[in-house]
């Protein structure tokens, strides 16, 4: 087991290095001149000014040198200075990431806590009303466009019934809790500020439902299909012939097998939630990475784009590592 984990870890490190190279190359070969987008027409027409500006940002050096500098800076946690915000990219990311992490994690929890049991029930009570309800829920989740779902949610619960708060992480007049992790739920709990906790929690409800919808649908369907497949296996009949209770058969024999594909899907879905919340964040005025990404992209802010891409790549690598390890925990055949 240890050997397996170490070899996966080694592989992850190699992949991380490779991804820095790929990210660097892509970022430095995309069409679009940052000079134009950053300096504006007037300044861009001044040759000296442009040259000075290029030298300042190291844009005049050969590619490989720029890569080495990039790596060196990375080693010091230096992702460069954002061209548009003029602040260290790492600091920008640190500011924006917690909001996304909090939203995505809540959405992810929601989709597994609801999706997996729903999938299990749907499979066990196949063709019953539970199964049909589950099918309807996942169909709605997977097929509704985010903006539409967000609009309906806001219109009904915020505008109409007025039982949910509006956009943003907190009420406009409220002060954020003292920042420890940047996750408002945790920070407010640490500070013992239960009003802020409630406020942050309430603000999370609508966006996390909107964000979770598609994942929830996917996880429900996958769990159901995987359960049904496992229930067909010979060992289930053997378990029944042994005189085990149905609950034990489902929980003890079918589920451990059925969860194996769900883990892969769930891991990748979490990575997607963490990195793909642009639309939801925009609609709910959520100050997260998604919006930062969007802003940096339209202004061709190379250091920021590279930084974000790197973070995204690392998130994927980490989650993949987690998937591999949980795979080994669930399926003894994986570890030789």
């Amino acid at each position, binding site marked *: 087991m240890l*050997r397996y984990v170490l070899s996966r870890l080694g592989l992850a490190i190699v992949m991380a290095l490779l991804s820095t190279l790929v990210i660097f190359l892509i970022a430095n070969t995309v069409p679009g001149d940052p000079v134009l987008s950053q300096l504006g027409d007037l300044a861009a027409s001044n040759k000296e000014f442009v040259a000075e500006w290029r030298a300042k940002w190291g844009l005049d050096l050969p590619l490989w040198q720029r890569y080495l500098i990039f790596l060196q800076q990375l080693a010091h946690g230096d992702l460069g200075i954002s061209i548009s915000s003029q602040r260290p990219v790492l600091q920008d990311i640190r500011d924006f990431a917690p909001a996304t992490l909090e939203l995505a994690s809540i959405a992810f929890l929601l989709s597994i806590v609801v999706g997996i049991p729903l999938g299990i029930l749907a499979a066990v009570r196949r063709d019953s009303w539970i199964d049909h309800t589950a099918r309807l829920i996942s169909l709605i989740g997977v097929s509704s466009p985010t903006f539409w779902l967000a609009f309906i949610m806001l219109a009904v619960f915020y505008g109409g019934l007025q039982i949910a708060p509006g956009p943003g992480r907190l009420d406009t007049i409220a002060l954020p809790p003292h920042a420890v992790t940047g996750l408002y739920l945790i920070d407010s709990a640490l500070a013992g500020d239960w009003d802020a906790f409630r406020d942050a929690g309430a603000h999370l409800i609508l966006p996390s439902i909107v964000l979770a919808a598609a994942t929830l649908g996917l996880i429900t369907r996958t769990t159901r299909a995987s359960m049904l497949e496992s229930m067909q296996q*010979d*060992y289930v*009949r*053997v378990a029944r012939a*042994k005189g*085990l209770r149905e609950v*034990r058969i489902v929980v003890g024999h079918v589920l451990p*097998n059925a969860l194996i594909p769900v883990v892969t899907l769930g891991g990748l879905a979490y990575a997607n939630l963490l990195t793909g919340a642009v639309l939801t964040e925009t609609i709910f005025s959520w100050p997260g990475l998604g919006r930062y990404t969007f802003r940096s992209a339209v202004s061709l802010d190379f250091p920021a784009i590279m930084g974000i891409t790197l973070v995204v790549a690392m998130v994927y690598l980490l989650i993949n590592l987690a998937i591999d390890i949980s795979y080994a925990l669930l*399926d003894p055949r994986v570890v030789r």
Partner: protein
Amino acid sequence: MDAAPPNRSPRTAPAAGSLVLDVRDLQTQFFTDAGIVRAVDGVSFSVSAGETLGIVGESGSGKSVTALSLMRLLDEPSRIVGGEIRFQGRDVLAMDAEELRKLRGEGIAMVFQDPMTSLNPVLRIARQLAETMQAHGRFTREQATSRAISLLGRMGITAPERAINSYPHQFSGGMRQRVMLAMGFSNEPALLIADEPTTALDVTIQAQILGLIAELNRDFGAAIILISHALGVIANVCQRVIVMYAGEVVEEGPTEQVLADPRHPYTWALINAVPRIDRHVPDTRRLVTIEGTPPDPLAMPSGCRFAPRCPFRIAQCDQHPALIEVAPGRKARCWVTQAGEPLPPPATARLAAGPPRAAQPSPAQDVTPPLLSVRGLVKHFALPREGFFGKGRYVHAVDGVDLDVMPGETVGLVGESGCGKSTFARLVARIHEPSAGSIRFAGHEIADASASAIRPLRRRMQMVFQDPYASLNPRMTVADILSEPIRFHGLTKTAGETRERVEELLTAVGLNPKMAIRYPHEFSGGQRQRISIARALALKPDFIIADEPISSLDVNIQAQIINLLIDLQEKFQLTYLFIAHDLAVVRHICDRIVVFYLGKVMEIAPAADLFTASLHPYTRYLISAVPIPDADAERRRTRLPLAGEPPSAVDPPSGCRFRTRCPIAQPICAEVTPPLATHRDGHLAACHFPGQF
């Protein structure tokens, strides 16, 4: 395991004679879209305490559905629609879910056919064994675990304390079946149902498991229902047998009497279709088979269900016969035997007056050059490295094999699974690339020849595989499958010519040429194997390598395919390399037999010699493991139980590879590899002490 003849001696059965199970007129049906399938149609039988009952019949005859019905383990769309099942006097069909749960695993236990899929792959053996005992509240977790360890030991698993913490994938098929038996006996059930428990196993392992079942029956006093399609297996273990055909019981009686003097033509045909290892008659290679297949379960004949295939049919057979007593303790469902007419005595192969073989090749190798000549053939497969820095390891699948095959000869290849038979066949066919050695085919060296150099020779050398399902492309019609190689090698000029050739081929393998437009899934297993054979013949080869061509087929279909292979050989002067694990079949059709063990040849001998005067201990064991479908013969012969399983081919034993299982191994066997030396005319063995076992 001891070598005592299985349990036909009187045993300490609890209150012998009291009924454990009584089944009356059981009817189980599948409600399919195409209609109602009467899978089990009025089956009645009973089992007394401590008794061993066998159920035989070809696949689809309803054996498994009967077994599942007994424990009410059926899934949709099948349902028990009539009849009565009484277990120790209690009505099983009236039980509620909780009563049923208590019955399962405690009153009746079941062992299924495929040990590879019967255990949950993600749970430890310990948990799977212990929960069986805990589920019935008889043991605490600790008690159950310690009992599980002792049961595993009882089942012949070495180091049970360690084994119990393993996962199923760490076990071989034989070991898993031992675990299943331990599970079955853990609550000391009154009845154990074993559905084809050894069908997926090697003969040697099969012999071990059957011996174990017989012993457990003796020691635990549990009644046993053993389901099998092989008469030899039943003869080995069971006192009484019922024969099923098309969902009905057609014959019932004491095993010895049924096998010696069958009273139903179907039983008679089954017995005739099996070649017998102990009674081989020279020059008769064709087997007596009944042509045709079982009736369509959606359209059963209204009269006797066997009538369309029955050689003894009379006018009365239009009416459905009942199962009635034809002799004391014996029942049959046949008008002819009920009227007291005897069936001709089944004498395997004797009745088959096939033409004697014309070209019996003599081992005089100096006259004609061999068609195939293999020298020092080696194939090592690299294993995936363990981690980044693990050292490369190899499976020694074939490790220095010499063999000549003469034109017109049939050479058999036998040995336990995993010992390199298939790899050898694939090397010869150059599907695999040899690691070393030489292969000369028809005078050409092909061991390291390029693909283009081999192509013209490919025409002359074809392969038939075990699984006719996997080897035929499901999206091509039979005509396409057969014409593809013909066109690829440019054997025909026009489409019309190709069509003619396809029809010719189908006729040659006994299929209707009109079937050419159909797809493989529209054929039965036996028909599909005929199509594979037709495809192999398409290029007019002179050499055919058949890798377990009949292993996945029913007894009667096996016999049909064997006869087909024999006929084709005579018609087209074919040379065969025939791989099979069924030694009786190999003996029946082969001129010479090669015994493989862990990638090496242990013995080569003319078929008759090998079975009467084998020199290598391993060969003795293999022969002894083959069950004989004759209760009397089974009882009289001394069985040699070969313990254990072949060691890993990654680090094979030094010296003689068989030494770890050889009872007469001496120190020299570990140091010096015995060479394959000639001991008699054409009889070679690789053993330091040939014939001394």
